[in-house]
């Protein structure tokens, strides 16, 4: 039985009809359709990528990047007023005193915490939801690492920097590609079950923009497998790592020298605020998918609201490439309940093909993500060759049944069990029918500027993972962000320990939030009205009809009358 409505059947028949010819071509070699030239790529990006729409960006009026153009939604967030008033807090008696404070319990934060514990120092790991409720838990496809004989970190470097349109910080790409094999081995030692053949060779797949098979995987639970192992390892150090859950940080705290020395946490369950003092602070709060930039659906977890970016910016940290958003080409477009969910790139890595309403393969399946996404939008808008859904969306087919024909029966079922299960829950059998897809908001390409030791422009503050900028330039390739948070989470842990070791004997730092006062003043002086506050901590999905019936001066989230 088909999982799609009657009116889509004609188009589905066309997809099935063109499949044998497409299959034949795919069997002969990988280039089923010619890849675009750099000029063609640029053209489709300029015309169709959401980043290039006229009002996609605007200059930010305050802070260290003042005058620079950024994604409009991000500018609105940075131009929001701090959500707390520094005068309300006594910072002189911290609730936690530790060596290293780590903000964000995703993959990057956990990796850093383990390093701190292994160095014999203490850490507080503060996070918004539970440890592991993060984007890291969700990644499916894989992690890049040049482990094959005909591959090398050098080729990996070239792929990453070309994919990022040559805007990447070379020092960071070097660190990432050179560390990659070592990280793969380190994770294996922790007990991550990489996919291997019977002789122990790591299975590798290709991904968009890679010139070799380089994607290591753990079935299609790659992120979950790594994240649950890292989380478990964090919990194996109860004497060193204090986990503080459901307690997002809302502002950073600085010391007398203006260096990062802690954070103010907001306990979402009890409403109290807690002060953490530390010698070094690592920020690893991940991305911003839940900002729903340009109204796009997102693949990100519930807590991906750019809090870290806002806090660090308030404290004077420079950001990089905040004008570029990654839309993943293949978000689910049907059925409605799963719109925006990620259909992993691995489907195309295994030979899946994007096909239009007429059954035509219209783009090289593994262009860099931004190019692929822009092509899908072109197909659906200008060319009108997309498929409309009953709720007024549009999408293109991703021909998945071809994967089994190409690689042998059962390939999809063993390589993509999560995907198969998820679609089955909503009535689609991806082994026999294609999926309907459309670009979805996926990844924060830019972020806090760092160097290879994860130092930010604010002394004492280290940043790792999706929150940082520069590693991927203006476009990240698949598999490089799992790698990113592991490599730089590891480095951040070590760098933070170094600093903490040098500072252990200093008298306790006097904490303050003068930077928050100064930021507020700057906003006022720029004439920006106080209509919104940040960081937002959680996205707002409640029915406005219900919110209308709240007492006007009651903030149900803060649990306070305002």
């Amino acid at each position, binding site marked *: 039985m088909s999982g799609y409505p009657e009116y889509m059947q004609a188009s589905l028949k066309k997809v099935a009809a063109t499949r044998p010819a497409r299959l034949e071509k795919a069997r002969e070699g990988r280039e089923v359709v010619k890849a675009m030239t750099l000029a063609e790529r640029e053209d489709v990006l300029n015309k169709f990528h959401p980043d290039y729409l006229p009002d996609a960006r605007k200059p930010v009026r305050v802070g260290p990047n003042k005058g620079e153009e950024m994604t409009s939604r991000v500018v609105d967030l940075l131009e929001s007023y701090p959500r707390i008033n520094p005068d309300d807090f006594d910072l002189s008696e911290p609730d936690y005193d530790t060596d290293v404070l780590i903000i964000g319990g995703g993959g990057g934060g956990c990796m850093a915490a383990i390093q701190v514990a292994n160095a014999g120092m203490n850490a507080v790991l503060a996070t918004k939801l539970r440890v592991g409720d993060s984007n890291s838990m969700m990644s499916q496809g894989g992690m890049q690492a040049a482990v094959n004989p005909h591959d090398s970190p050098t080729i990996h470097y070239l792929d990453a*920097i070309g994919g990022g349109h040559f805007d990447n910080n070379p020092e960071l790409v070097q660190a990432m590609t050179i560390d990659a094999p070592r990280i793969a081995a380190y994770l294996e030692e922790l007990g991550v079950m990489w996919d291997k053949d019977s002789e122990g060779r790591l299975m590798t797949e290709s991904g968009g923009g890679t010139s070799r098979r380089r994607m290591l995987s753990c079935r299609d639970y790659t992120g979950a497998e790594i994240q649950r192992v890292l989380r478990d390892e964090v919990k194996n150090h109860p004497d060193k790592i204090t986990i503080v859950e459901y307690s997002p940080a809302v502002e950073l705290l600085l010391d007398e020298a203006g260096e990062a020395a802690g954070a103010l946490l907001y306990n979402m369950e009890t409403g109290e605020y807690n002060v953490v003092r530390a010698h070094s602070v690592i920020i690893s709060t991940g991305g911003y998918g839940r900002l729903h930039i340009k109204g796009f659906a997102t693949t990100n977890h519930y807590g991906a609201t750019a809090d870290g970016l806002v806090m660090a910016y308030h404290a004077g940290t420079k950001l990089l490439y905040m004008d570029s958003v990654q839309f993943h080409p293949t978000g689910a477009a049907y059925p*409605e309940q799963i719109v925006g969910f990620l259909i992993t790139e691995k489907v195309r890595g295994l030979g899946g093909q994007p096909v239009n309403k007429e059954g035509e393969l219209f783009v090289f399946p593994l262009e860099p993500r931004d190019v692929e996404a822009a092509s899908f939008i072109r197909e659906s808008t200008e060319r009108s060759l997309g498929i409309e859904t009953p709720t*007024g969306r549009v999408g293109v087919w991703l021909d998945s049944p071809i994967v089994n024909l190409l690689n042998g029966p059962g390939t999809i079922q063993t390589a993509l069990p999560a995907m198969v299960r998820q679609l089955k829950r909503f009535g689609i059998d991806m082994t026999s029918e294609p999926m309907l897809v459309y670009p979805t908001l996926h990844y924060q390409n830019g972020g806090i500027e760092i160097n290879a030791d994860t130092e930010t422009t604010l002394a004492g503050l280290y940043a790792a993972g999706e929150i940082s900028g520069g590693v991927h330039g203006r476009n990240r390739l698949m598999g490089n962000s799992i790698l990113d948070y592991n490599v730089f989470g590891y480095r951040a842990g070590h760098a933070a320990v170094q600093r903490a070791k040098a500072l252990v004997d200093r008298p306790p730092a006097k904490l303050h939030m003068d930077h928050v006062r100064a930021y507020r003043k700057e906003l006022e002086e720029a004439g920006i009205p106080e209509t919104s506050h940040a960081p937002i901590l959680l996205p707002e999905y409640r029915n406005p009809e219900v919110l209308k019936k709240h007492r006007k001066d009651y903030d149900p989230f803060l649990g306070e009358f305002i």
Partner: protein
Amino acid sequence: MVDNPRTPPIITAMEEKEVEVKAPAQEKVPDESPKENLIPVFIMGKRFFVPESFTIITAMEYVGFQFKNAVGCREGFCGACATIYRLEGDYKLRTGLACQTVVEPNMHLAQIPFTPAVKAVYDISKLKPELVSIQRYYPEVFRCVACNSCTKACPQEIEVMDYIQAVKRGDLETAADLSFDCIMCGLCAVRCPAEMVQFNIALLARRLTGRYLLPRSHHLEKRLAEQREGSYEKDIEELMGLSRKGLTKRYTERDLDFEVF
């Protein structure tokens, strides 16, 4: 737009300042779908009316809940949204993930945002990949009465009882394989009459398997040895020294080679 277009539009702190921009998807066709039917569901005993195609999470948001726990990924990967429910006229206590389960008329539900669980503290480098390692930390594994309640409760369709049996036989690799898709939602443990925490036992079995039982990759070991000599640093530094033009040339001229090994 949001998870579901028929959920309320996103309103955030910045709402008023947002420029009205239509996403390309929405530009094309207006939403002409008929208004959704509302059905009654009981959330912790209290009745609410929610759209019939919504998942439990989006339905709860629709009626005004704001989640501060019991939600994470919203896509079936994190296990934060474990939920138990009963359907009208049915004695069975059912389990599911709130982000993946569509509401049903007269569903009575409660969430279980947290499962108190025994979690062993160990140093993986000092353990042997054998039954004794698990026995030492989780002796309760032998109390399994093979009732299969865990398997029935698992939203991931995992053969939970079978992996526990595999552990008991000392076959850690099979246990690792069978439990691989576990998202640690805790529903099996809540239902277990032998009071064990299956998901933590499975995690230990997998970590032992990943570290000790899977064969080592010689390619990886070779690469690490090569790297100790530092040859790639030099190659990359050469690339770093190129002008943007030179680098672009190297990039566009790079060969594609998709051989498996």
